[in-house]
């Protein structure tokens, strides 16, 4: 239960930090945005990340990965958060990829995971149907039809859905909307007839798609994991993704804080550096303390997930609730403390505000996770 990094982990983090600050600084996101890049990330850069092994960090060696833990992947995500570097790590590796890893047959895993590790496949998990995170609210139906299934329904906020080579789709095979039981997972080829995918641009200059499935027939071996038992897979996958997204948020919030602290130390008004004003000092101190708490929670949640501990789920909700509130508070404060310059598109701080706002809503907001935290603690 160490809350410190070992030498190798420190090395990995330093190399990730070095890579993103050199090859994917904030100006990289900015240029993708300004040219309305359709993918939302740079394939060239992604290839380099893949070469550094990032896609397969937490995937077993037998499928071409490095077989390391979520902690290591989390460190990389944190560094990507620092420069807002867009990657398909969340969509392809943490959501859809992990679903395959958790639930897939040997054949499915062999077919998909090595391609993920090699960066040859973008995947997306289509599981949300509402604007507020509610993974069991699945109305999308899959009816048995011969040896296969026929899918009908709609999904929303499918991250990187518009460029996915393979979709993992949750559909109801039994029970009522809202039931935990009766959800199943399917592999769907987005190019298949009846699949309609519409890209939306989110305010953080990333993509989330609206998908609709109209009588889409898939073969029996498109079923991922056990019939009706998809929620078990979903829970594990979402918990792990939530923890890593929180790590990314930690990077984002840390950088926001660093930039703001620096501004307080340099901006002069009233013949003084504004960081000498006590009201601003105390606010900076409160942000500093909050970040220290966030760091501890992120490390603990990543470690608990790697160790398969009983409290891993509780910690996943704890960390997402915390980072969401920290992001809301610190990114808003950062804009305020930057004053007018922080309102300009030219300054980076607004991009942190926007990405912060998007991650706050992604995979459940703080109200959702605080409630789940309470529930897992027995109240």
């Amino acid at each position, binding site marked *: 239960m160490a809350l410190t990094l070992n030498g190798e982990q420190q090395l990995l983090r330093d190399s990730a930090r070095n890579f993103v600050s050199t090859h994917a600084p904030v100006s990289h996101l900015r240029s993708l945005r300004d040219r309305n890049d359709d993918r939302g990330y740079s394939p060239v850069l992604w290839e380099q990340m893949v070469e550094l092994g990032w896609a397969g960090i937490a995937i077993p060696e037998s499928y071409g990965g490095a077989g390391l833990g979520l902690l290591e992947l989390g460190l990389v995500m944190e560094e990507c958060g620092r420069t807002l570097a867009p990657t398909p790590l969340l969509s392809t590796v943490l959501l859809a990829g992990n679903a395959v890893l958790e639930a897939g047959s040997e054949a499915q895993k062999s077919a998909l995971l090595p391609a993920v590790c090699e960066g040859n496949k973008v995947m997306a998990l289509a599981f*949300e149907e*509402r*604007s*507020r*995170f509610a993974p069991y609210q699945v109305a999308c139906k899959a009816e048995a039809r011969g040896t296969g299934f026929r899918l009908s329904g709609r999904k*929303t*906020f499918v991250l990187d859905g518009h460029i996915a080579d393979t979709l993992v789709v949750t559909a109801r095979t039994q029970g009522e909307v809202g039931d935990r039981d009766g959800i199943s997972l399917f592999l769907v080829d987005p190019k298949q007839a009846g699949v309609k995918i519409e890209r*939306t*641009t*989110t*305010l*953080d200059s990333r993509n*989330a798609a609206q998908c609709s499935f109209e009588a889409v027939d898939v073969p029996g071996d498109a079923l991922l994991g056990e019939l009706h038992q998809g929620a078990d897979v979903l829970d594990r996958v979402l918990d792990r993704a939530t923890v890593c997204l929180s790590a990314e948020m930690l990077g984002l919030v840390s950088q926001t804080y660093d930039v703001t602290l620096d501004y307080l130390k340099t901006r*002069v*008004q*009233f*013949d003084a550096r*504004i960081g000498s*004003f006590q*009201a*601003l000092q105390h606010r900076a101190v409160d942000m500093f303390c909050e970040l220290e708490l966030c760091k501890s929670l992120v490390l603990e949640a990543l470690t608990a997930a790697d160790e398969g501990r009983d409290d891993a789920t509780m910690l996943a909700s704890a960390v997402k609730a915390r980072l969401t509130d920290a992001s*809301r508070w610190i990114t*808003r404060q950062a*804009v*305020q403390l930057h*004053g*007018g310059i*922080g*309102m*300009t*598109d*030219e300054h980076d701080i*607004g991009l942190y*505000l*926007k990405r912060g*706002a*998007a991650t706050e*809503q*992604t995979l459940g*907001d703080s*109200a959702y996770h605080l409630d789940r935290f309470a529930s897992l603690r027995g109240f």
Partner: protein
Amino acid sequence: MGELESFRNEVRDWLKASVPESLYGRPLTMMAREEPEAADLQADRKRYLERMVERGYTAPTWPKQYGGGGLTPPQAKVLQEELGRLRVPPALMGMGLTMIGPTLLVHGNDEQKEKYLPKIVTGEHRWCQGFSEPNAGSDLASLRTSAKLDDSGERYVINGQKIWTSGAQYSNWIFMLVRTDETTKHQGITFILLPMDTPGIEVKPIRLISGNSPFCEVFFTDVVADVKDVVGGVNQGWTVAKTLLNFERSGMGGGGPQRRPGATTGGGLVALAKEAVGERDGRIADTRTRDRLASLQLDELAYSLTLKRSAQTRKAGGAPGPEISMFKLYQSELGQRRDELAMALRGTDGLAVDENEVGPARAWLSAKATTIYGGSSEIQRNIIAKRVLKLPIN
């Protein structure tokens, strides 16, 4: 029937006869993105403006001699209420009416009042504000844009840069603060007026995080201004500016909840909340959301009652005092809370942005400026601490 009631009837009849019906129920278009309007609608707007100008109703409380309506404050309120009843937009808006006009009435000399006020009333002069500079934001008085008297003693030559000049690209006049004495801070500032088409002025819009560009940078290179256009005396600009800033804050805080394009209104939030988390027995299903909304509504209620109480207490006709800082502070922070709540309730749907519309995400982003411009919340707190609470200075 009281005098006020007969005035109301008169106004009501006149408005009915004068406002083109096509304008009934029209939302404000100021601050929203410019979109081309049908030619007949434009003509109706023009006709409406002309009629209002004729009666002095674009500046209802200003003296008639300057083109105002000469109305008493209660009469002006009646006019506003009657316009509100028809849901027609104001015929004319802008800093001329809300900021420089009232300031000239206090600090301007007769010549200036006669020259400028009538052109504000008709909309011929559209004013912008040259106050902030890149290194003079919260600390406005540290401004550096210099005005040096030339040999004739009748002209200033201005050099420097202004920033956050709202609507500079649409304005034909600017009121600005310039430094006329380098050896002192507040006592070396002069308030001056000049036309935007004066040679040497360059305007550059600033793109904001919301994607809009309501503000500009304005660059001054050897720009010549007339000494007659100094308001309130050379090196007396800080006093004039303080008056004007209070009018500005009073516009920001005094008017009750302001409608901003894309922003969710109070009632809209309740509907949004019921949709987002569901209803139980006609109530928002989730206590957490209900509490957040209730606490916002309670704040809004307490705030609007305080505005009302302040208006009743304040002596008639006076320029607003430092307590106006409280309203500026409170209104901007309330608005941001409302937008944050609206964003939270929309969930992932609220994250989508569309290049062509002012959705809630853009409104949320725009509102972040309200606690910064016109004196940041921190500055308002400093003002209240010093001038209202009389706390000691370090």
